[in-house]
């Protein structure tokens, strides 16, 4: 009795959840869906049905081993490795399923990953992120960036090699390759451009709010109100004044400022970006040790030297945390800009919704998630590097 209780205690709760969800998805959810064309509803296939017996068995055995690691092994490095192997196994399985189900030379049928695949992927992703947060000591920033680069290189090599070419998403990509590159560039440009503009305005505004406490309440309050407006509503609000501006000032129109398109998108993202950067600039400056500033003044540094050489440098990790929030948030919000003709990867999302072509939605959504994730990892690494040398 007591031994059973002790054993049960040793079973990892998250591991149990992940294993149960993974097993259920393998048993009862379709791993891939076969469609005669991109719009017709398709037939569900389980992993066992599509893959040859030996491959299916190998796949299942590896997943069971990974589940055992998730249930019983505490070492975070082993858990992380197991989860990453699991991702590779599942990706390889879905790629070969697509290759096996597609008749040679047929460009019309679509093999899409089924709900079972996605649930399995989420379970493995959960296991991996949980393992990363459990790693002690925490991996150094450089190691984290290296891991991201390695993951991107493997994924990039597989894509370049054509491993996934028979999967429905890559079929959509093949049709839209030219537009994809353009919209991806537009996406990054909108996210980074609005961020850059926000930094240029928010940094001085944050410094001003720190210096003049009376301003702080009204400025932060005002920016908070903007933050509560839904993105679509804000695009709508900006349409009329920008349209009027373009009509009244020909120069503005010639510069590309119109009621729809990139201008209202950049402006809205810019407005959303202000609050996190201003608030974190104020918070970062507030955290600077008053003794350090007092000593700097006492040693004869000018106000400008104190601001740039002491205060802003000490506040930088906090300010960068605000910038990280904004960048990740913008990469997501740019998607909605497609609705008002702003371009970006959201174009594929809304086109896909319009055509009920879920594969096209994924072509827009997956790279957006990957971009946001990479931005978060890179900026977190940068912030950590700074926090390590100065505390």
């Amino acid at each position, binding site marked *: 009795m007591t031994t059973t209780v002790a054993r049960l205690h040793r079973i990892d709760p998250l591991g149990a959840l992940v294993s149960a969800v993974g097993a259920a998805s393998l048993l009862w959810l379709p791993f891939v869906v076969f469609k005669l064309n991109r719009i017709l509803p398709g037939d569900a296939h389980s992993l066992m049905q599509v893959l040859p017996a030996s491959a299916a068995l190998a796949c299942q055995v590896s997943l069971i081993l990974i589940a055992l690691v998730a249930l019983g092994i505490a070492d975070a490095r082993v858990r992380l490795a197991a989860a990453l192997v699991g991702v590779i196994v599942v990706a390889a399985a879905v790629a070969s399923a697509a290759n096996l189900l597609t008749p040679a030379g047929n460009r019309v049928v679509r093999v899409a990953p089924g709900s079972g695949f996605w649930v399995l992927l989420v379970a493995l992703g959960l296991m991996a992120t949980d393992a990363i947060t459990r790693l002690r000591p925490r991996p150094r920033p450089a190691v984290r960036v290296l891991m991201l680069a390695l993951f991107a290189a493997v994924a990039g090599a597989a894509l370049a090699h054509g491993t996934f070419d028979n999967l429905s998403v890559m079929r959509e990509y093949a049709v839209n390759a030219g537009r994809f590159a353009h919209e991806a560039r537009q996406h990054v440009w909108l996210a980074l451009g609005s961020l850059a503009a926000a930094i240029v305005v928010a940094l001085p505004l944050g410094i001003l709010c720190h210096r003049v406490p009376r301003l702080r309440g009204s400025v932060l309050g005002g920016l908070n109100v903007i933050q509560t407006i839904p993105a679509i509503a804000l695009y709508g609000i900006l349409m009329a004044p920008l349209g009027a501006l373009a009509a009244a000032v020909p120069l503005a129109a010639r510069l590309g400022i119109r009621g729809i398109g990139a201008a209202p998108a950049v402006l809205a993202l810019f407005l959303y970006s202000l609050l996190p950067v201003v608030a974190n600039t104020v918070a970062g400056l507030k955290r600077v*040790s008053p*003794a*350090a*500033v*007092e*000593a*700097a*003044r*006492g*040693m*004869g*540094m*000018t106000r400008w*030297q104190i601001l740039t050489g*002491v205060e802003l*440098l*000490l506040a930088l990790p906090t300010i960068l945390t605000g910038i990280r929030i904004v960048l990740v948030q913008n990469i997501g919000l740019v998607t909605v800009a497609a609705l008002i003709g702003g371009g970006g990867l959201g174009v594929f999302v809304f086109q896909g919704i319009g055509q009920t072509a879920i594969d096209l939605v994924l072509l827009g959504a997956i790279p957006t998630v990957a971009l946001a994730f990479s931005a978060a990892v890179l900026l977190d690494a940068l912030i950590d590097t700074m926090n390590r*040398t*100065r*505390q």
Partner: protein
Amino acid sequence: MISIDNLSKQYGSTTVVDRVSLDIERNSITVIVGTSGSGKSTLLRMINRLVEPSSGRVLIDGNDTAGEPAHLLRRRIGYAIQGNGLFPHRTVAENIATVPRLLGWDDTRLRARVLQLLTVFQLDPAEFAGKFPHQLSGGQQQRVGVARALAAEPAVLLMDEPFGALDPIIRAKAQDDLLDIQRRFATTIVLVTHDMDEAFRLGSRVAVMSRGRVLQYDRPAVLITRPADPFVSQMTGLADRAMRLLSLTTAGEAVIPGAAGGPVIAASASLRDALSELVWRGAESVAVVDADGAPLGRLTVAAILAHGRPG
């Protein structure tokens, strides 16, 4: 050296420093002591114009400090504060190099100065130069703070409660070090504290402040024997004033001729320590020796006690 001439500071209708005049001797430690709110820090901060005086003047070597831009004035005056105010994002060496860099020293001179100061402050350059402040103990941080204040060879060093954050044992060591440093660099030091023991230990002259006014400014022994004001005797302490007085004179200064057996005491020890030694040993006299152990003479109980009363 430093002439404070009828200096006042008002914030609105509140007078923080009220018509203070002081002449601070060159190459000595002057201590300004007072309770919190007495205006002692404000007075100190008016010397390097961290606070601009409402009226009055500060002259350094005869030159009015109001005559040059404040930040240039401050680069010529060392400044050390409680909690040291080190820059957490800069290494020990970079911290020390702050003012010389502002003054545009060349790299060779700067590096040599940083090395010298680290050595003087007993911080092995190989070990400490590249460390960040948070990697140091409180006492080490405090030493770096003083080293940084002295980096550009200032003639004047202002210190605002520099040892306030240290525990008693490290504080005593830091006070001894400061006396050595003052002799070594012949710096004129003005130090603010609320601790009378610290004031007596360090100051060759002590100014007692209360409510913005300097009540008395004199040698420590005079503050004890001839307090100008009830507040001064309250600050110096009535109960143990005799012992305080004894602590101000060294055995070497009070030594009388003759030989003594039994206990031995160094010439640098205070009469308070000598008396304590006699009480402890139950002896009537103690031999006084110099730093090399050579006999200088002796001290008797009567000779010691004669120094413990106004005379």
